[in-house]
């Protein structure tokens, strides 16, 4: 691979992977905060309000880091992928600009109001601010997914005289079927992260015998929401996504499954390492005919293998793609199991006392981050060698004028900057969790200027 191409890919992959650690939590928490706020008003129970404020503070920290790491994403389309931007900017610039105009203004404005304005707004408007933050963050997600969906499944465009593509149908772009499927799958993935994190913090408080009232709310909401979205993640959204790939990117499906040869009644690989040289899977554990059934709903359906296309059209890194996909699916299955057991214990009223389950809930929260990241890696590695599927190859899209040396300079700079950000983030989150959802006892002479929307003004 051309070394300049490599560094441009590395930098984008690194910055976007890091960035998405934060929006997945904010998009996941946003609906849960709305639920907490709704319960607070319905039950007129201050405990729920304290819970909502606590999560809004966690949201605020994540949102801030999401914004500062998000700005580079938009810029890098131009700085690092200028040939791609020139080619496709007239189309995907639409969805990216709409994110700025519709979602960011909304989200940043109402988050400010939610965090700082509870006293001035009153309860009903404060609920409305929470709801608008939810709408803004989810709209933002849609525009980004629609942008990626166009790269996966380009629609609504036409070729212009200079070789670039132009928008031909706005609605085709915005209502891309790929976007709807990917969005549903992605958003339930985000809520998995949100609910696992909420349950983990609740479990932590219960185990350390602190903030018990709010902790029970966290665990209850985290487990109920977590079970619902974990199931949705597999069926129907995961199923839709899989069949969409099979239909529109058959090579990608074959690479995800490391299916080297076209088969009738293709098996599903549970465990095994792809051997690219010998074109087989080492020590495989298979479920016979399952892949055919999942893809086409017929046990003996034919599934296209990699042998049907020339190697130059294969995704370049099939083993990484294969493992990303299998890690995503494996963890997704685990999430259903964990949440189903937790929900069963909750239903029996035994969850508070099942210390082993609370330990498990507390420790398992990093895995949704892994699964979401692996899912995005599956989507983006699977699209290779195309930058825009079928229209532009990745090696045609990067900034030819930006040398590998300048690319390494900025990549290392980003790595350093994000290391600092990580430390600050962990420090702040630890402080919020240490402080907890309950108001501090002596508000008379607070020593520090922390974010306390509720108690003063």
């Amino acid at each position, binding site marked *: 691979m051309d070394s300049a191409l490599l560094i441009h890919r590395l930098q984008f992959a690194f910055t976007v992977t890091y960035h998405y650690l934060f929006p997945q939590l904010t998009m996941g928490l946003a609906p849960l905060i709305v639920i907490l706020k709704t319960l607070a008003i319905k039950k007129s129970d201050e405990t729920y309000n304290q819970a909502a404020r606590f999560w809004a503070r966690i949201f605020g920290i994540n949102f*801030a880091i999401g*914004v*500062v*790491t998000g*700005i*580079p994403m*938009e*810029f890098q*389309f*131009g*700085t*690092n992928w*200028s040939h791609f*931007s*020139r080619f*496709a*900017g*007239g189309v995907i*610039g*639409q969805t*990216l*600009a*709409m*994110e*700025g*105009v*519709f979602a*960011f*203004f*909304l989200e*940043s*404005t109402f988050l*400010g*109001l939610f965090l*700082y*304005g509870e006293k001035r707004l009153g309860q009903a408007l404060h609920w409305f601010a929470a709801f608008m933050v939810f709408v803004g963050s989810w709209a933002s997600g849609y525009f980004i997914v629609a942008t990626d969906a166009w790269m996966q499944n380009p629609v609504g465009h*036409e070729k*212009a005289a200079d070789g670039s593509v*132009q*928008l*031909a149908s706005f609605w085709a772009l915005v209502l891309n079927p790929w976007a709807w499927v990917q969005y549903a799958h992605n958003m339930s993935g985000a809520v998995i992260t949100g609910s696992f994190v909420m349950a983990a913090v609740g479990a932590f408080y219960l185990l350390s015998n602190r903030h018990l009232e709010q902790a029970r709310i966290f665990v209850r909401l985290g487990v109920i929401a977590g079970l619902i979205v974990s199931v949705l993640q597999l069926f129907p959204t995961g199923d839709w996504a899989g069949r969409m790939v099979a239909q529109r990117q058959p090579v990608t499906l074959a690479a995800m499954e490391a299916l080297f040869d076209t088969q009738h009644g293709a098996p599903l690989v549970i465990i095994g390492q792809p051997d690219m040289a010998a074109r087989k899977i080492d020590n495989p554990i298979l479920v016979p005919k399952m892949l055919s059934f999942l893809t086409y709903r017929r046990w003996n359906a034919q599934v296209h293998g990699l042998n049907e296309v020339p190697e130059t059209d294969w995704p370049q890194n099939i083993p990484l793609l294969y493992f990303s996909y299998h890690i995503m699916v494996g963890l997704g299955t685990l999430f259903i199991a964990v949440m189903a057991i937790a929900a069963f214990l909750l239903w029996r009223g035994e969850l508070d006392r099942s210390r082993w389950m609370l330990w498990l809930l507390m420790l398992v929260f990093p895995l949704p981050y892994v699964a979401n990241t692996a899912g995005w890696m599956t989507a983006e590695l699977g699209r290779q060698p195309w930058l825009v599927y079928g229209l532009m190859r990745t090696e045609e899209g990067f*900034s030819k*004028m*930006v040398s590998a040396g*300048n690319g390494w*300079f900025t990549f290392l*700079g980003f790595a350093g*900057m994000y290391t*600092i950000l990580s430390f*600050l983030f962990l420090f702040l989150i630890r*402080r919020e969790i240490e402080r907890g959802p309950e108001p501090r006892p002596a508000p008379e002479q*607070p*020593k*520090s*200027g*922390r974010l*306390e929307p509720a*108690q*003063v*003004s």
Partner: protein
Amino acid sequence: MATIWFMIIAVMVAMYVLLDGFDIGAGAVHLLIAKNDIERRTILRAIGPVWDGNEVWLLAAGGTLYFAFPLLYASSFSGFYLPLIMVLWLLMLRGIGIEFRSQLHDSLWTTAFDVIFSVASVLLAIFFGAALGNVVRGVPLNADGYFFEPLWTDFRVGVNNGILDWYTVLIGVVSLVTLVVHGSLYLATKTEGELNARSRRVAFVLWPVQVLLTIVSLAATLYIRPGVLANFSTWPVGYVIPLVVAGSLVYLLIAQRQKNDRRAFLASCGYIVGMLVGAAFALYPKVLPATTDPAYSLTIYNTATGAHGMKVGFVWWTLGMILAACYFVFVYRMFRGKVRVEEAASGHGY
């Protein structure tokens, strides 16, 4: 239609400079104006609820540029690769400075973040000015419409450009002084007592500097780009722009004499808009002149997207802006008024 989008983007950039300009300017004078912890918190509270909303204008302008003029976006962003990535780092550092400073009540911690916030603000003001200077001066575009500039070469204005040369550094200094005045005047409207007096003093002392720099930068521009006045003779209505600039400067002095902070701030807004519109007007229809061969220059016509995209964009853009304007009015009304030192001391927010 391309002209309309040119104007829209110019307006969005101007909005960004007006809005984020005052918090960048406030950051640049942060260490100078605010002497103790409570005063510094007062400054941060004055910009705290609005700064990231202001930065959204940069994103929105960038996104709009992306779909309306894809080639311009692609060419300028990759050509200005190094300064743009550094601007990103500075924006991050500034955000970190604002948001993390008051998280710990420890003098070492707060001082460190005050310095980060202030230094990043100063550098941003200079970088943005230098970027504008590059656009006016022109860049070494090749036949495909691409270029790449190192940070500096020999500091001379020629074909072998760097991002920084004497001209772009000069514009960077103009930008710094302008934003410092702008930020100080904003702080004056938002503060009382000592802070208010110091903010006024900074803006007042810098007035003659600002006038001098305006004249010098105009002369320098005429020197490096003699053809820059052509549009003014084609469309004489353009002569309104220098009048707005000069009038704003005069009114700025009058308003300061009258101790009317609001009007002084508005005068500064008028000055900034005048300068930016003047630059855009002089360039039109070019958007990135070439120093290599004038024929390689990027114009709104050879960089614009297709007609359908522009029309569709116009519909949703108008809708989005109406919504955004509603949120902005709402938020500024919710948080209107002065930030009192006691309020900052009471512990909530920054």
